[in-house]
């Protein structure tokens, strides 16, 4: 062999070797990217899902693409692993030889993610479907829509509308966050839900009569009622008896942890006028820091432990769910585990919870203590452990003092009085049994459900504007300018229509409330105006009234007095100009 020939051999083999090194480096770069979560991880398609992937790649490529970028794909978890069903499952059907179900429930996810599912099921999230018979739902079902379908009253040009589905607002609104009660259509026109099926612990229905009623389509698939599906509400009531939907937060089909860690994920539901947690967060220093430093927050990290993987800013997940260095990186899927107040009800309650995770309402201290399984102090400590990654103990304690004071002030000044007034109106039967048919019911709903929550949530997550202008300011305005006058008006009307005792009870209560030191300012000017030059007059009036008193007009002195106070704007300003004016001025200054 000549030297030239050898030269070519060396040249060829050498280049081949170098080319292989380039390939090796390329693969290494790819792997590092995949490890850091930045690249497309290698999808391992399990044999059982190969045909699904092939077909759906053509029919719905988005599903496959999303899945291919997921940790599931990387670990060889394919379509069948999640969608597989037992033959006895009510929604199971044969799909090209595999028995599958459309809806993947927490029971399915729990086959692998046991701890996460258990934590989730213990959470308030899993109980979100309980709203389905509540006040809120009455709003959407009846007030906004109609529980029974009704006929259109005029044509819709270009579209044939034979019937109006009055449940539309519930289906599209409430249930997309709270979760629907999944229903199958029955052959007799009925809807078959978990209530009818009575599934056993494995999720297999025990009511066989109902099973035989399930309507199947041409391909032999059980027909899901379109009012209940599609739905990824977090408290969905599934056919197998499980509650919730993991994809509410872990969007299918990539189940991205990165996305679940970002506030936008929670913002699908936690926003808007009644609980603007996301907007509150965005206004807070926490949200501001997040927007600025998001890129540095290692959102792709495998465990995403606060204090280890990042410290730049907390997201919703950081404080309420994620692991941190002080708890050994333990994630919880119960976002209530670190909450010390529940600001959901009209009057905030401390989060002492019982064995079922329900907030204890018992007032008797001994009895209450017996029921507590997890105290609000425990939960607060859990949250403080998060705060302490970036704040000192003194700072955190002082924050909680501010927050507690705020909530207690709201509770005592407006919420409990509001509850008392509304309760008294009902007790005295001055309101109809029907919700939302009277103005004051809307007023009260706005006060606690919208403004009151905004205020309390604003305080809980350090958003001053929500605590004050969107919050307490509006609560106060609603209370003084609407709730009190409307309650008095109802009472006065009642008094006029022969319910003097009932009316008096309500008016007395209002007067009692307004006589409290924190409310005293409100009608002080009027009282002073009355008391000053009119102190004699009032007695004289009282005397004359007594003289002329007709039995039916027992309520009039108080009502009359009020009426007088209301209309006496001019004397109010004249009689006591200094005190009322100096107080608002001071408030403004603050």
């Amino acid at each position: 062999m000549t030297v030239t020939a050898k030269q070519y051999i060396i040249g060829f083999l050498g280049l081949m070797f170098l080319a292989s090194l380039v390939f090796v480096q390329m693969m290494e770069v790819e792997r590092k990217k995949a490890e850091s979560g930045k690249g497309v991880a290698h999808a391992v398609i399990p044999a059982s899902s190969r045909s699904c992937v092939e077909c759906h790649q053509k029919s719905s490529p988005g599903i496959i693409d999303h899945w291919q970028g997921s940790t599931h794909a990387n670990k060889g978890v394919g379509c069948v692993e999640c969608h597989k069903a037992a033959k006895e499952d009510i929604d199971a059907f044969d799909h090209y030889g595999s028995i599958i179900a459309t809806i993947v429930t927490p029971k399915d996810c729990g086959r692998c993610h046991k701890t996460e599912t258990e934590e989730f099921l213990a959470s308030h999230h899993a109980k979100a479907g309980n709203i389905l018979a509540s006040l809120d739902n009455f709003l959407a079902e009846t007030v906004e829509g109609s529980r029974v379908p009704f006929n259109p009253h005029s044509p819709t040009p270009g579209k044939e509308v034979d019937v109006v589905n009055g449940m539309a607002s519930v289906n599209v609104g409430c249930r997309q966050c709270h979760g629907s009660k999944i229903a199958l259509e029955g052959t007799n026109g009925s809807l078959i839900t978990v209530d009818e099926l009575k599934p056993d612990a494995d999720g297999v229905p025990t009511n066989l009569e109902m099973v035989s009623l399930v309507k199947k389509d041409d391909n032999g698939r059980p027909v899901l009622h379109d009012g209940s599906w599609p739905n990824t509400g977090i408290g969905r009531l599934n056919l197998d008896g499980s509650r919730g939907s993991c994809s509410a937060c872990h969007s299918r089909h990539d189940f991205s942890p990165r996305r679940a860690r970002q506030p936008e994920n929670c913002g699908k539901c936690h926003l808007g006028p009644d609980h603007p947690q996301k907007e509150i967060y965005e206004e807070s220093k926490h949200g501001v820091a997040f927007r600025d430093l998001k890129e540095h927050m290692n959102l792709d990290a495998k465990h995403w432990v606060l204090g280890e993987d990042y410290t730049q800013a907390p997201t919703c997940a950081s404080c309420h769910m994620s692991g941190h260095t002080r708890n050994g990186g333990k994630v919880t899927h119960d976002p209530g585990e670190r909450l010390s107040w529940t600001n959901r009800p009209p009057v905030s309650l401390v989060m002492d919870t019982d064995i079922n995770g329900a907030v204890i309402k018992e007032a008797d201290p001994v009895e209450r203590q017996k029921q507590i399984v997890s105290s609000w102090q425990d939960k607060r400590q859990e949250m403080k452990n998060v705060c302490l990654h970036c704040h000192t103990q003194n700072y955190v304690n002082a924050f909680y003092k501010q927050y507690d004071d705020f909530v207690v002030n709201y509770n005592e000044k407006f919420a409990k009085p509001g509850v008392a007034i509304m309760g008294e109106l009902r007790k005295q039967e001055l309101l109809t049994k029907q919700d939302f048919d009277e103005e004051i019911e809307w007023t009260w709903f706005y006060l606690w459900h919208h403004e009151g929550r905004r205020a309390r949530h604003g305080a809980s997550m350090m958003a001053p504007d929500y605590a004050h202008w969107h919050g307490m300011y509006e609560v106060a305005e609603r209370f003084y300018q609407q709730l009190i006058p409307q309650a008095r008006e109802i009472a006065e009307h009642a008094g006029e229509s022969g319910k003097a005792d009932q009316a008096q009870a309500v008016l007395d209560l209002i007067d009692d409330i307004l006589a409290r030191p924190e409310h005293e300012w409100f009608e002080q000017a009027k009282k002073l105006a009355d008391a000053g030059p009119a102190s004699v007059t009032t007695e004289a009036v009282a005397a004359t009234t007594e003289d002329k008193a007709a039995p039916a007009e027992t309520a009039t002195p108080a009502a009359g007095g009020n009426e007088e106070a209301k209309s006496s704007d001019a004397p109010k300003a004249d009689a006591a100009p200094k005190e009322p004016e100096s107080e608002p001025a001071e408030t403004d200054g603050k």
Partner: protein
Amino acid sequence: MSGFLAWLRERIPVQGAQLHELTNEPVPNHLKRWWFALGGTPAYLFVVQIITGILLAFYYQPAAATAFESVRYITEEASFGWYLRSLHKWAATLMIAAVILHQMRVYFTAAYRRPRELNWVIGMCLLMCTLLTGFTGYSLVFEQLSYWGATVAANISDAVPVIGSFAKQMLLAGDNYNERTLSRFYILHAAVLPTTIILLVVVHIIFIRLHGVTELKLEDEPEDKPKHFNFFPDHILTELMIGLVLMVLLSALATIFPATMGPKADPLTTPEVIKPEWFFYVSFRWLKLFSLTFAVLSTGFIVGAMFLWPWIDKVLRRITGIEDISVYIGIVATFALVGLTVWEAAVAH
């Protein structure tokens, strides 16, 4: 000035002519083609490694608790730290590649034949030292992959019959990766192996100087042309040019693909995918193909054969009567080497 030179010459009694004689080896013409001049490349890269290595050693702390953090400091905070570390990483890669290319050239031109057999053995020793230096250096980063790579390597050496467990003990300073392992790797990487390499390189060059470079007669060369040219300055210029190109290449690689930080070593979590450094891909893939003992023994056998190739070549030629038998074997071996490397790179497990 002349007074100073006279003073110096008296203290260092070496004549200019002697120095010229010593350094100016006549270089065969084929070395004018740069691809025949790759023997100097590993040496050049080795110098880069020593310089960058010393600078990195200023910062590096060889203990389990501090190693990762010190590498992170180098990469993310120290001035030009990322550049030095990347140069060090890429020079290591290129050095191993250059050693392999140089060895291929020597092998295919049969330059190991009598009387240069011993220099081939020294070259093999240099290859082993280079690979070991690469391995120990990678382990020093103390990230997940390097930690698990070292653990796997130690377990592999454990499979060697008779001396296996002893070798593992020596490598890890105990039965398992422990707090003394890193300092052992560090001393090997930064002191023992480089010194050994320097000594071997000196002997390697002395041998070349004694035997002269193997003369290859290229067919297209005119008969009357002189067979040699001067080492200085002609060959030095070629080497300088190769060096400059290498520096540009290194710098570009270091800038475009800088060395990054993986997750910190966690003895409790085995990573999804364990890969050694690329130069062990061949043996890693080989290991996965056969039972551990067979793979380890056969690897030992192959390495042994490589050491003894000058004599094996002689025997094979005598038995088969084919002059270029080693070339054919070499082609097959290179394809196997590249094939196994690519295979290992392409798959996750």
